[in-house]
């Protein structure tokens, strides 16, 4: 059955797959996770604030992002971001935004919606006595968040945040719709050029599986190490 498969195609394309493809995938994952986390924290704080309009806007944003398929959002932003840039800067024609920048913005905005829900649960898991004790000591709202609530909340939710980041790592493969050579895109290019679809897609699956598996295992190890004893 394997007689007419040529696995040597993998060896020949290794450099292209990893140096170009995987680097792109990992960069996009890391930057999207970092941006999504910052933006997601802001949305979570907005949602938890006593200010009704802020909470409503944040809730609407999260619901909106979570009810759209990611591929659709990626497409959309690719076409929309140049026009938004033009509108923001008042330029005379649509601003050229590379596929990387546009996909990065998309993932940050999309992941922020998911991260914010994780953060919200994490912040709500801190007992109300903690912020009360912090304010009683004279800490302001932002100091209370920064030194008391968020450090505890982060530790509680870090495993879930990292698991979501592993999902993000897999989701970045969807940028293939913009013909960006991420890892899967690179594998797919080689596959079609050499007519070795089975070999390349098998290999791509194996790589995604291995990385995600090892990362999940690491998250579990970390979880037991950082838990706050109460």
């Amino acid at each position, binding site marked *: 059955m394997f007689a007419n498969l040529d696995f040597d195609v993998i060896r020949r394309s290794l450099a292209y797959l990893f140096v170009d493809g995987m680097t792109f995938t990992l960069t996009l994952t890391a930057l999207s996770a970092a941006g999504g986390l910052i933006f997601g924290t802001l949305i979570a704080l907005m949602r938890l604030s006593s200010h009704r309009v802020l909470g409503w806007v944040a809730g609407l944003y999260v619901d909106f992002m979570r009810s759209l398929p990611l591929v659709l959002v990626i497409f959309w932003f690719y076409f929309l971001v140049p026009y938004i840039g033009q509108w923001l800067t008042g330029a005379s024609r649509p601003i050229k935004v590379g596929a990387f920048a546009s996909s990065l913005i998309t993932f940050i905005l999309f992941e922020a919606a998911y991260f914010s829900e994780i953060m919200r649960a994490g912040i709500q898991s801190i007992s109300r*006595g903690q912020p009360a004790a912090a*304010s*009683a*000591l*004279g800490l302001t709202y932002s100091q209370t968040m920064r030194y008391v609530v968020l450090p505890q909340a982060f530790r509680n939710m870090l495993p879930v945040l990292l698991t979501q980041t592993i999902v993000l790592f897999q989701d970045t493969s969807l940028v293939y719709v913009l013909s960006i050579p991420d890892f899967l895109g690179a594998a797919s290019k080689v596959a079609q050029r050499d007519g070795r679809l089975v070999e390349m897609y098998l290999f791509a699956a194996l790589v995604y599986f291995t990385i995600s598996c090892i990362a999940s295992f690491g998250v579990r190890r970390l979880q037991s190490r950082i838990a706050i*004893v*109460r």
Partner: protein
Amino acid sequence: MIDISHVNKWYSPAFQVLKDCTTSVAKGEVVVVCGPSGSGKSTLIKCVNALEPFQEGEIKVDGIRVNDPKTNLPKLRARVGMVFQHFELFPHLKIIDNLCLAQEKVLGRGHEEAAAKAMKLLERVGLNDHAQKFPAQLSGGQQQRVAIARALAMDPIAMLFDEPTSALDPEMISEVLDVMVDLAREGMTMMVVTHEMGFARKVAHRVIFMDRGEIVEDADKEDFFGKPRSERAQKFLSKILSH
């Protein structure tokens, strides 16, 4: 020092939790607030440093109106120490850092100065050996003593205690009360919500009895324990003093 006048608070239009509460705590005075659970005593003490808002009336701490929107609440709270029923130490920080955090971030003290102050206070509550531990490694009584030291580190002008011994095992209650008795004898202004009548007899100047959101009795210690005027206070006292 603390002036509470005609405070009314509703949780919802149908549920009034504080009804026209008026009392005061003078400088150096120790006032014990007691009453059955749900009588509003914890709510009242939390109104004093604005952890709980109230709709009507006025509370002044050292002449500053707590319910004035222009009042700098963090600044005011930093001057009033508070000890909670469930300690509320910060579990992610070491004991020493629990004591240093607000000193550094609120009072702007340097780390050296804050740590020195923290160690002095830990020694005072007998816990200087535990400075490098985390709160969860301490017993309830020890945690509550740390919480008192944490409040004292801010050099407060008054201390509020919200049922400081209710969450403790019986054998740990006295170690916390001892610290509070010392504090009272040193002349600290204290408002203490507690059921510990032994503590009240020993150091309180006045006792306030609350029931259903009202201050039913506000009397000198001798009068309160000698001959409480209201029937409700008599009933309450007979219940908790009969054991």
